[in-house]
């Protein structure tokens, strides 16, 4: 392991211990993220229980097939992320670059679709606020659903943008040879973050898009 001198920080005894510490640190951060989104999920659960019919009507206004395709796109980006981590563990800089950018591009597709969805909401007066109207009616509880929809998917999209920027930065580092020697964990750590963002969406999709669809 003497070729990986540069990768071992002085306060660690071995590369394995260093990797363990990095992993634990990233998981500690992800736990805070779980609680961050968890609070929103808890609020959503309470209000969905209180206003189920309004939530179902509001949810049926979302396009479940577009949402489903977007879910598949995001799952695809998690798969390409796994491939990037795999390449990083084998120190293959070109593959790292390719799979990181595949991940970024799929993430970009996801965000593009979300933009189209948001634009559609704007057209239909579904942005919460003084101009909110649900099917011509103001003051209904559907607005609460859309408040959760925009807050949760917006926060999720914000997390994706941050992730994509970091992935792009790592791709540059890869080309510069940063991951040519073993012992560098950055790609794997950002992979954990990216998968977490995917996990949030795995729950957001059915909860937001698929309420009471069988009545339709």
């Amino acid at each position, binding site marked *: 392991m003497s070729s990986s001198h540069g990768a071992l920080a002085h306060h660690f005894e071995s590369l394995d211990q260093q990797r363990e510490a990095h*992993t634990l640190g990233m998981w500690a951060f992800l*736990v805070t993220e*779980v609680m961050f989104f968890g609070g929103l*999920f808890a609020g959503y659960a309470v209000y969905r229980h209180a206003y189920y019919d309004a939530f179902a009507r509001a949810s049926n206004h979302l396009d*479940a097939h577009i949402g489903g395709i977007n879910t598949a796109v995001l799952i695809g980006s998690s798969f390409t992320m*796994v*491939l990037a981590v795999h390449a990083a563990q084998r120190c293959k800089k070109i593959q790292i670059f390719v799979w990181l950018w595949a991940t970024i591009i799929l993430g970009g597709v996801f965000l593009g679709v979300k933009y189209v969805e948001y634009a559609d909401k704007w057209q239909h007066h579904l942005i919460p606020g003084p101009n909110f109207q649900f099917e011509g009616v103001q003051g209904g509880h559907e607005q609460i659903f859309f408040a959760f929809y925009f807050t949760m998917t917006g926060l999720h999209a914000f997390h994706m943008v941050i992730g994509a920027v970091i992935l792009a930065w790592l791709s540059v580092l890869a080309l510069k040879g940063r991951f040519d020697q073993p012992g560098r964990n950055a790609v794997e750590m950002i992979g954990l973050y990216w998968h977490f963002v995917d*996990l949030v969406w795995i729950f957001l999709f059915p909860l937001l898009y698929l309420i009471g669809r069988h*009545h339709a």
Partner: protein
Amino acid sequence: MSGHEQSHMKLYFGVFVTLLVLTFVTVWIAEHDYGAFNTPIALAIASFKASIVILYFMHVRWSSRVTWMAAGIGFVFLVILLGFTLSDYLTRDWMQIYGPALGSR
């Protein structure tokens, strides 16, 4: 660490395909009427998808117990958050003395 990564590729691909299939199943089930079971089924499928992402994509299956614990603790606190919050709000109208449920006039 580099030795056993090769053999995981088929597993990763299998997990990926499983996730896609389950996404399709989730939408399909939502469009059929299973009464009160629609939501629990959707959440169960989502939970299974989450667990295979965590175990395989996030490598927790091959991680140390410390990592298992860190990931598990997040889940434990989420359950506490949801459990206590919902056990309050969902039972508000069970006994009249505790007042009306949220959302009823």
